């Protein structure tokens, strides 16, 4: 069932009115072997290391979070209050599944974790602006880190 119909009317209206790019084709990086893959986690949950600068306004950039960071090293400065922050406050894994990914590596489902994970901030009024600069830089950073697979999580 679509989530839009369970949202407050005002939020529904905003999301339905939001322009969304439409595409006829889809890129394909080719097959992967997950058990040998180096996996990175990229989120739009507005997370960052406690010592890093918070996201300000509609900051189109990203922050780097070492994949061996502890949950207490990470805080959230997402601009939106239209989502339940208490879930992340109780358990970071609901948007940034560090523990679950480490378990998947331990079990041999995934090969290994990349040294660096990334966080953007969602709710961007101009996603193209994010992609134009930071998106490309992020892709280059992940490739330099030898990443094969990226798991993307929203807020």
């Amino acid at each position, binding site marked *: 069932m679509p989530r839009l119909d*369970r949202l407050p009317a005002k939020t529904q209206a905003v*999301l339905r009115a939001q322009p969304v790019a439409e595409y006829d084709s889809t890129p394909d990086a080719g097959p992967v072997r997950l058990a040998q893959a180096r996996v990175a986690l990229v989120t739009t949950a507005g997370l960052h290391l406690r010592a890093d600068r918070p996201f300000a306004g509609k900051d189109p950039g990203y922050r780097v979070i070492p994949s061996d960071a502890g949950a207490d090293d990470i805080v959230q400065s997402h601009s939106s*209050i239209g989502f339940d922050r208490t879930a992340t*406050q109780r358990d970071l894994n609901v948007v940034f599944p560090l523990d679950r990914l480490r378990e998947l590596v331990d079990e041999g489902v995934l090969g290994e974790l990349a040294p660096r994970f990334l966080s953007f901030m969602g709710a961007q009024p101009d996603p193209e602006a994010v992609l134009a600069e930071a998106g490309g830089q992020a892709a280059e950073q992940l490739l330099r880190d030898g990443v094969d697979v990226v798991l993307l999580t929203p807020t």
Partner: protein
Amino acid sequence: MLARRFEAAGLATTSISLVLEHTALLRPPRALYVPFPFGLALGHPGDAAQQRRVLDAAFALFEDTPPVLRELTGEADDDEPGAPVQASALGLDGPARGGDVAGEVSRMRQYQQHWVARTGRTSVGLTGVPPTRFRGLVRFLEAVADGRFERPRECPPETELPYFIRWCCDDLKALYAEARFVMRPEDSGDAVARWLWADTALGDLLRRVGQRLAESDDPLARQLAYGIAR
């Protein structure tokens, strides 16, 4: 859209989706639509088994040729709201209206310390001000609510004042949420939000701060007001 950008660069991707309609238009290479509220992309806090089912389903999408958009089934709670209640949906005449916010913060901090001791973690920290000095943040916000925008010494010189105001509000909200997790561990996110806005002196102060920013001549302040209370 990031998934498309990464995939085009040679990085294989799988994504979690919370808005099915948008994802269908974007056609990312692999996406798993999940029936959870905003803020719960991998499922519910503390439910490692559910989070694992989500990840297993997301990684299973690599078995198919892109584009793949699949819906996770068997996990939905039809009674769960899609987003937490906002201040404007609740009445303004709660018992804590106009109450002693600084005193209330001190009481909440005692509960919050139990949360930190138990979990080893806190979401408080955007301002860099330790909770032991949050009474000072309260005095600052009360001045803002009264229309006095005096820059506190805790505000970093490179930080615009409206952002510091926003982060003060977020740090206090986080402290109260962690206190509530100890006081009423069974409360949902929506219940925590209702308690904050309807039953706490802080909720009343945050409404007034948001209103003051919304009336400001500063366009940045007006923009950030929406993220404090609405």
